[in-house]
């Protein structure tokens, strides 16, 4: 028996054909399949946040009564992000700048500078947004005034329903993650069984 055992490994130690060579191949195959079966959930688990379409999970967020936002002024509003994990803590208190240009018109800016995401401050006297990090400056309509930002401030989609201001959000924006949501991906807001888009009732359920 021991003689035949030696013959299935050649002089370089590589397995030859024969019973043990066959077993080696089966073993390698099984370990390979098993490894893939373990790797799939592990990799899926790690990369899940990257492959999730967060844009599709954005939703309407209540910023409160429109009376809080005087016409012609820009004020800070804070909301709780609709998508969050169990340990988010205070990091969930997301601020945004609400500019009311007329009775029915708003512009709502993300807090994050378009340069590298620091929080911009509004200065009502000079009507400018300034960033404390690298000195990006924006005009009151969010357009870029000076400094390193490559574009103006990111904006939210919004609508007013029953005298309440809503923004469509849930994600932190950057140059690859737009503030505004593609029209087709904006889901209607449901209030008391009525669905609203652009401030108008589109369907009652």
């Amino acid at each position, binding site marked *: 028996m021991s003689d035949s055992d030696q013959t299935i490994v050649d002089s370089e130690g590589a397995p030859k054909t024969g019973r043990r060579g066959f077993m080696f191949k089966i073993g390698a195959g099984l370990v390979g399949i098993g490894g893939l079966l373990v790797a799939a959930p592990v990799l899926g688990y790690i*990369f899940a*946040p*990257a*492959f*999730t379409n*967060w844009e599709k*999970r954005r939703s309407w967020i209540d910023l409160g009564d429109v009376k809080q936002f005087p016409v012609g002024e820009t004020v*800070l509003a*804070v909301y709780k*992000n609709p*998508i*969050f*994990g*169990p*340990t*988010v*803590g*205070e*990091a*969930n*208190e*997301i*601020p945004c700048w609400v500019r009311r240009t007329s009775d029915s018109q708003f512009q709502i800016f993300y*807090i*994050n500078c378009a*340069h*590298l*995401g*620091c*929080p*911009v*401050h509004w*200065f009502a*006297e*000079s*009507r*400018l947004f*300034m*960033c*404390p*990090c*690298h*000195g990006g*400056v924006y*005009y*009151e309509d969010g357009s870029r*005034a*000076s*400094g*390193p*930002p*490559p574009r103006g401030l990111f904006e939210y989609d919004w609508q007013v329903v029953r005298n309440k201001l809503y923004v469509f959000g*849930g*994600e*932190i924006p*950057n*140059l*690859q*993650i737009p503030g505004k949501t593609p029209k087709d991906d904006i889901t209607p807001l449901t209030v008391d069984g009525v669905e609203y888009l652009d401030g108008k009732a589109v369907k009652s359920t």
Partner: protein
Amino acid sequence: MMQTLKTAWSWIDDRTGIMKLLGPPLKHHVPRNAKWWYVFGSCTLLFFTIQIVTGICLALVYAPSGDSAYNSLLYLDYVVPGGWMLRAIHAWSSNAMVFMMLVHMTQVFLHGAFKFPREMTWIFGVALMLTTLALAFTGQVMRWDSDAYWGVGIGASMMGRIPFIGGWLTHLILGGPIIGGDTLSRFFTLHVFILPGAMLGLIGGHLMLVLRHGISEEPRKGGPGEFVDKATYREAYEERMKKKGVPFFPDAAQRDMVFCGIMLIVLVVVAAWYGPIGPSPRPDPSNILVNPRPDFPFLWIFAILALLTPTIEDYLIVVAAPIVLMVLFLIPFLAGTGSRLPSARPIASLSVVLLITGLLVLSWLGVTSPWSPHMSAWTSDAVPPSFVHGRTPIQLQGAIVLQHSQCRNCHSLDGLGGKRGPELGDVATRLSRDQIIRQVQQGDGNMPAFGKNLTAAETDALAAFLHTCHPPGVLPADRPGARLKQLREIDKARANN
């Protein structure tokens, strides 16, 4: 007694074979002239060991959870006995490790120690450098304060600069759509499991390679190992070590021990004196009155990102940074042979001078950050009395406009205020009144246009005031270049007197 201990030791050695394992590395021969230049690598390793020990201790109390991490830091600082000191040692040892690593790397580069046959040792070293910096960055995030929150935000925004996969990468590092508890968990896993694991593996490889190829001699003119020739270097080196080398332990190790001992004492004194780093305000993004700043190893990046023009910024982040890293890895292949003397390698030596100067200047600029507006200058720094003395009502009105329009967030008056724009105390010597009005209304050269935000009367008053801002004895400019002419005239008058 001694005899019993000796017997016990030889029993342990016989059954475990420990001296067979440790003996050769400890006794391996190193060059006789490898002296004080060669202590920095050991010292970097020492600081890493400190990080492991204090890191494990901190993990006993620290809660890696978005909703309680900050409170656990306060608990460490104010309640847990010695907690503040462990936080201080961990933070300062991190800084020291980055610093010592850079010194070690500079020495290796200047002495050409990366050349044949030690290419892989260098490559492992560069990988160790990247891992160390990654540990420093993720460590800053562990503080989970406002600096950590916005620091991660800056990281996420930088991801957004990368075409096609930027959004994907952002969500991968954030672990979700916003900076939250899942983000902290990801960075915690990196900081505590993945990066230290990688570090241990890389250090093992680095040390194994040091043993395999030996420590290079300090290059001296006409000295051994001055020139690296692939055909002869190895044999000649081994020959020299056999004949003239000294055992690493204790001949070289004693210097390591002296230096490391001093550094340890310095570390503890600095940690006790300066205390722990941070935490800055709570990680509540709705508190926007923050001034996010990175830790010292990243201040130079903070500076570069502020000083670049927007048009080349994307290329720097996406194209130049990977190229620089690639060059760093490839150095031993670009200059793998030839002289190791710094004086015979002018480009290499000058690059070191240039790089160190650049890093120091950029880091200093990062500390002072003259590009950042002083957010409260307009309410905290009053117009100095000398600028309002003897002014007309419209000029005084202009001073009020200057103050209320946040001009001083970016412009200083007599040194007080922001440094982003030019000092206004002598603006009248540079710009005529019409030019001031044009500059205010249209903006230019990094200044926003105030045309829409100021009324004609306000602009007029502001220009009237600014046109009084000139040092005594120097007349305001009435046209471009007027100041130069005045100065020439003053010089002429002085020369005539």
